């Protein structure tokens, strides 16, 4: 017979809401519902939506955006923003293909392209952390500069890749599932561990939630800020490499405007624009919603210009929803 409650049971009892599955559904109820309704409508309106093949296509399409959005989630959690993600996609894609065409092996080329991303993130993070310039201004300026560099090194032309191993990374299948989905799954596990299981992850929430209190708590704000921007840029570089592989070429125009989809996915997934709030699981659903939306609009034969209008409205609704939710929380 057990007298008194053991520490184990107390943890279980007090963690009713901490049960990850229950919490996941509770926290993301609104957006999950939206995703469900969208899928329902599309499966009625089109024949091909619920097709297994189409599902895999949707998943493959969201990979790039989800990678960017994970990085964006980190940046938004610390109260920043990273507008360079799209440009990094272009630059890293161009870099990896040109390196391989110049005779560098595939693995070293990929590592160098990722390192290029890390350097860009380091520059972003250092300027933001050390000068106190607004992240928006810094990354907006860097966005233009990086894109310009991608044009300069390619002379504005797309660079075709002749390495078939490389191109099969973005286009191939393993056990009937596109390879990018495996990459996404692995990245998702890694970023989740970083965010939930490390001191670094927990401290990110503190910085975005209340920078003054974070400073008084003895948290190294500058160091964490720099690391977060590096992380975001490395994820963007990875996305750029996968995209280049899928397009059989490195294109200086690749990734243009991707920052807005990444922000939209993060915010749709419950990440707060004012910092301190955000989850990887939420962002994944955000990316799914945007993916299903694009796919559905295509299946319904809606012209791409109209799609742009619709997507813009969705972002406004998402941010509006975020603000209203926060307002209610405060009361």
């Amino acid at each position, binding site marked *: 017979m057990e007298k008194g409650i053991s*520490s*184990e049971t*107390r*943890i279980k009892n*007090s*963690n*009713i*809401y*901490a049960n990850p599955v229950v919490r996941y559904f509770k926290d993301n109820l609104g957006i999950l519902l939206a995703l469900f309704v969208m899928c329902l409508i599309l499966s009625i309106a089109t024949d091909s939506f619920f097709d297994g093949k189409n599902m895999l296509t949707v998943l493959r399409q969201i990979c790039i955006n989800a990678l960017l959005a994970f990085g964006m989630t980190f940046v938004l959690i610390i109260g920043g923003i990273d507008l360079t993600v799209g440009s990094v996609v272009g630059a890293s894609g161009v870099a990896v293909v040109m390196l391989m065409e110049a005779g560098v092996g595939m693995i070293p080329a990929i590592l160098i392209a990722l390192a290029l991303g890390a350097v860009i993130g380091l520059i972003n993070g250092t300027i933001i952390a050390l000068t106190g310039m607004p992240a928006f201004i810094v990354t907006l300026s860097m966005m233009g500069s990086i894109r310009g560099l991608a044009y300069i090194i390619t002379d504005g032309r797309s660079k075709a890749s002749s390495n078939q191993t490389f191109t099969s990374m973005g286009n191939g299948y393993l056990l009937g599932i596109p390879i990018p989905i495996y990459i996404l799954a692995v990245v998702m596990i890694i970023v989740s*561990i970083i965010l*939930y*299981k*490390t*001191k670094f992850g*927990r*401290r990110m*929430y*503190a910085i975005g*939630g*209340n920078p*003054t*209190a*974070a*400073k*008084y*708590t*003895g*948290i*190294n704000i500058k160091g964490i800020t720099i690391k977060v921007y590096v992380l975001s840029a490395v994820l963007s570089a990875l996305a750029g490499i996968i995209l280049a592989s899928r397009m059989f070429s490195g294109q200086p125009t690749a990734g243009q405007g991707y920052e807005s989809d990444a922000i939209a996915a993060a915010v749709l997934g419950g990440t*707060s624009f004012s910092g*301190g*709030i955000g989850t990887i699981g939420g962002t994944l659903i955000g990316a799914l919603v945007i993916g299903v939306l694009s796919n559905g609009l295509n299946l319904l034969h809606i012209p791409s210009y109209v799609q742009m209008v619709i997507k813009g409205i969705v972002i406004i609704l998402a941010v509006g929803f975020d603000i209203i939710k926060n307002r209610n*929380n*405060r009361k």
Partner: protein
Amino acid sequence: MANQYFMEMQQICKTFPGAKVLNNVELRLKAGEVRALMGENGAGKSTLIKILGGIYSKDQGCGCIKINGKEVEINSVHDAKAHGISIIHQEISLAENMTVADNLFMGEELLKKVRCFVDDKEMINKAQQVIDSMGMDIDVRTKVGDLSIAKQQMVEICRALMYDSKLIVMDEPTSSLTQTEIEQLFIQIEKLKKNGIAIIYISHRMDEIFRIADSITVLRDGELIGTDLAASLDRDKLIAMMVGRELMEVYKNDEKPEPGDECLVVKKFENKYLKDVSFSLRRGEILGFAGLVGAGRTELARAIFGIDKVDSGEIFIEGERAIIRRPQDAIARRIAYIPENRKLEGLFLTNNIRYNVSISVLDKFIKLIGVNKKTEQGILDEHQGSLSIRMTSGEQKVQQLSGGNQQKVLVAKWLATDPQILILDEPTRGIDVGAKAAIYQLIYTLARQGVAIMLISSEMEEIINMSTRIVVMHEGEKAGELENKGTSETMQEKIMLLASGGKINGEGN
């Protein structure tokens, strides 16, 4: 027959999802009456006031609000203003980047004959008239952000007068004022009273209440406990009404801590805010820091903790010279600083209690990627217990807690670091009697365990009752150091004298 009450709230109820926070509460006020509204945090004072001010709406079909005997509907701040009701919130709500005149006329700007241009000249003139009529020394062209907090509060009062208010609610107006500024405020309140303006005054400070209020209304747990003339009540009765039990002595301390060895010595600290400040602190000692707001007490704490730079001076911990450049260095030396503004500087409001309590000691239970949940829970349990934090679970968001409980969470966060030197900056500002008592008892316990404590407080009563010694500061300098002996009155006089720049013969230095 004419109704003699200016404002009546009858049978007011308010239900939030899951909780009834007001139940049949009544509040009646005559013109020119100063009414103190009292109760512990969470008693329903703010909710009642927010209903009066049109920020919340009362439950439908329940009770009514009457102005001059006529029933009115107050559904917005605008409605409240139209009925002559103004609320001065605890947090000042002026635009710091704009001038006093602009603030006074905000939303009601005076226009030139050509109706699309604002008439700056006329606004400045009129604003200056209002300020002068209150006997205040403020140029209305100054930016509000450049004024002292006290003056900002006066500007808030003037703004209420601009709207031709007949009833002004002041929510904890003195919480950031110095004694002299409080006196100024009381003079203004007397003036308002003479002009027939009714005032509802919310405060936790008993001495103020008994000085300024004609009558006192006490709420507890959303219920009206009673309204009585201030003259027929005293401290003990009032506390008993508020807490619902006989007065437990808040400062009760059976076993005075015995100060041990010196553990913190500060020598000749100088920076932008401090001039040649030196003092020493012993283990188990509670060293009080008294002085006016802006005397440099918080700045001294910030300098010791590595938040502000020190231009010259030395600090010794346990006899060893310490270099503290950032809070991390101070924490490594087992110093903890509990800042005065818990919401802005202390807590992560959107995160839960567990997070807030454990954020400063992540090293204790996270090793690379392994989170030891048992240890984490242990840390929370230990401090929740010792501080009796009222919460539904560790997952509750800190912003949902009452002020007193938020303060306890903040204290718990720093106790988790197991400090040797604890700096408390206004630890009981704006919290109720029960929470205050819990924090005082904790301070005693820590002192008995040998923790050295720096207690910064603007509440005279608190400083005198808690401290072993008292350092008084004035304009960035140490004005004197007092052994805490003699009656409370003589101590208070000495402190006041030093704090205002005077000298004591034979004592002080």
